[in-house]
């Protein structure tokens, strides 16, 4: 290699580009909630792009009540060892020590998640302080941009996790996309007012107005239970899909998982979606979101 200059040996880890770039690699894919190494293997076999390691799926968190926390490190280690795809795990909102632990365990992405019981009622974690990237939930554009300002490298809708009802995820995604579309037509004068209204940094608002999209990848989460649900979220503009309780609370998890993966890839081909939707066994039962008491709505957690 004498004819070419030597390669600089100063690698930089944990940069915004490396964190956001990781999420770009997950696009078009399905990220599945799993609670055991066996489930993680089923998810990987079905074609998941990543798994979310947690102690209980949201449907069980709802049922059991109590404080929901970060998972046992042993369980997370077991899942990391079981699969070759990326492993994500959840920390409580504002619980930066849980996040430090997850980083130390070597998870590939941290979900600062409203599905767990918030640890701080005012502050989210400072996500710039970590090498491990974060994904955060949002119900609207302002919330998404506040999370990105705090260092989130990926955004997902909140939906209403553990209900098997996609209505809230649809609402959040339409809200975010609608607000982005509105910014597209704004001039600089209007963007200052928009930033104030969105309670988000001007620079980020301007960037969204120019790009016509978030500066990070946007996934859907919350309530996806069928292949058609997943395809719906993709057609509404989600770049990929998280599936929580919808898979392992159904009659035939392996088959349903594979079907949701296929429908996510061919989201715009109704023939494929029809084909993979046949004979999947029972879907999770589901909960009507409008009968959920206010205190049980996870989407209201975070701000």
């Amino acid at each position, binding site marked *: *290699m004498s004819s*070419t*200059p*030597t*390669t*600089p*040996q*100063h*690698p*930089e*880890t*944990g*940069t915004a*580009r*490396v964190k956001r*770039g*990781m999420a*770009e*690699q*997950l*696009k*078009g*894919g399905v990220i599945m909630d799993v609670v055991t190494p066996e489930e993680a293997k089923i998810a*990987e076999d079905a*074609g*998941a*792009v*990543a798994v979310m390691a947690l102690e209980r799926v949201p449907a069980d968190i709802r049922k059991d009540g109590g404080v929901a926390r970060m998972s046992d490190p042993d369980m997370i280690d077991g899942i990391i060892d079981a699969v*070759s*795809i*990326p492993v994500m795990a959840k920390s409580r909102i504002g619980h930066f020590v849980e996040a430090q632990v997850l*980083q130390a365990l*070597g*998870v*590939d*992405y941290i979900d600062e998640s409203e599905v767990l019981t918030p640890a701080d009622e005012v502050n989210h974690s400072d996500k710039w302080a970590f*090498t*491990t*990237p974060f994904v955060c939930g949002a119900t609207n554009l302002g919330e998404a941009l506040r999370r990105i300002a705090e260092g989130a490298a990926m955004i997902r809708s909140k939906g209403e996790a553990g209900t098997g009802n996609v209505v809230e995820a649809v609402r959040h995604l339409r809200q975010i996309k609608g607000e982005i579309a509105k910014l597209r037509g704004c001039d600089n004068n209007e963007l200052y007012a928009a930033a104030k209204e969105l309670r988000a940094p001007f620079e980020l608002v301007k960037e969204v107005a120019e790009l016509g999209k978030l500066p990070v990848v946007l996934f859907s989460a919350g309530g996806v239970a069928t292949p058609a649900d997943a395809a719906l979220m993709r057609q509404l503009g989600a770049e990929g899909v998280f599936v929580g309780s919808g898979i392992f609370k159904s009659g035939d998890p392996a088959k349903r998982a*594979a079907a949701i*993966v*296929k429908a996510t*890839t*061919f989201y715009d081909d109704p023939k494929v979606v029809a084909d993979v939707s046949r004979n999947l066994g029972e879907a999770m039962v589901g909960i009507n979101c409008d009968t959920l008491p206010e205190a049980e709505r996870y989407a209201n957690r975070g701000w």
Partner: protein
Amino acid sequence: MTTPTIGVLALQGDVREHLVALAAADALARPVRRPEELDDLDGLVIPGGESTTMSKLAVVFGMLEPLRDFVRSGRPVYGTCAGMIMVADKLLDARADQETLGGVDMIVRRNAFGRQNESFEAAVDMTGIPGGPVHGIFIRAPWVESTGAAAEVLARYDGHTVAVRQGNVLATSFHPELTGDHRVHAFFVDMVRTAA
């Protein structure tokens, strides 16, 4: 041929970024998911993504053999990261059932640079790319453990091979599509023009 048509395999991964980079390098770029969509392409990019997933979807949707035929046809193919894994003849640290297309006589080690915490960016000198080092973004990146006689090493980082070319197949461990620097894509588009 002035404007070659180049497909980007769109089963999963950072397809959009490759479409943008190819268009910036004066190619007509379009996503492909079905066998018949390969027919009138002059070249193909296999993007970054999750190689386990991409390989599974290729099998399930009947794309594996058509993609292998595409590589064999001699039309140029460029794989980044997961795409590099896809064009490797042999893999290490992969599931036993992970299928590849092959095309480059090399052994690629998956996630060789480590998990996401070890993902990094660094300058990389690449043979054939004028104008100084390229900005390499390595995300849970593979490296090339060894190459056969027909494969030419185009770049190394920290002693590991991270870019190779064999005939009309090009592969990089890193992601030029994430940088806004389109020189590697321009290099590939030139390969496509020359081959056509």
